[in-house]
């Protein structure tokens, strides 16, 4: 699974969880889910874009 798909899966799971935990009506849950999901994915893409110019370097050695 690619990093992006993992990020989508992680964001979806966490967003569903907190929407169910913090809101009671379906409409409020849907709104919070979208806010969290889009916020997490958007922030992830933004960070990736900001870090793009920096080289990743060689992989760290496995201890």
């Amino acid at each position, binding site marked *: *699974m690619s*990093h992006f798909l*993992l990020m989508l*899966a*992680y964001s979806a*799971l*966490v967003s*569903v*969880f907190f929407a*169910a*935990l913090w809101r*009671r009506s379906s409409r409020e849950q849907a709104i919070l889910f979208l806010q969290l999901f889009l916020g997490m994915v958007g922030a992830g893409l933004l960070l990736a874009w900001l870090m793009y110019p920096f080289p990743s370097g060689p992989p760290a050695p*496995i201890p």
Partner: protein
Amino acid sequence: MTATEPQPARAAEAREPVAGVNPWPGAVLAWLVPGAGHLYLRRWGRGLLFLAVILTSLAIGVGLEGKLWNLVPGQPLSYLGTLTCAGLGLPYLVLRFGLDYQGNLQSQGYEYGAAFILTAGLMNLLVILDAWDIARGLKE
């Protein structure tokens, strides 16, 4: 009154403890099986949803061969990691002691999987608190 303000009747109702329900069994059940505390409190939809979300997160983490934390003497962070993973209850006990699962350090998904497993543990800890609050009448 705006839509976000709690309605007095509903707020007062929410503060009433759930009739005839001891919060301890719900909390223990919620720890043992994710979502079981809510099922015990007859919050069927939320209980099943929490069960599905937490087990899916755990399954992805284990599928990626992510790290399952264990205690390492002299490393305080390992205590926090283990406590978080142990928040999963029965699934943690089965993985740790039944299947002797620790993750695979050589796997590319080792760290990503660890994030999914830790998140599943943290989510279940929050679910335990939610079940406790519902049983005490602090939440709906």
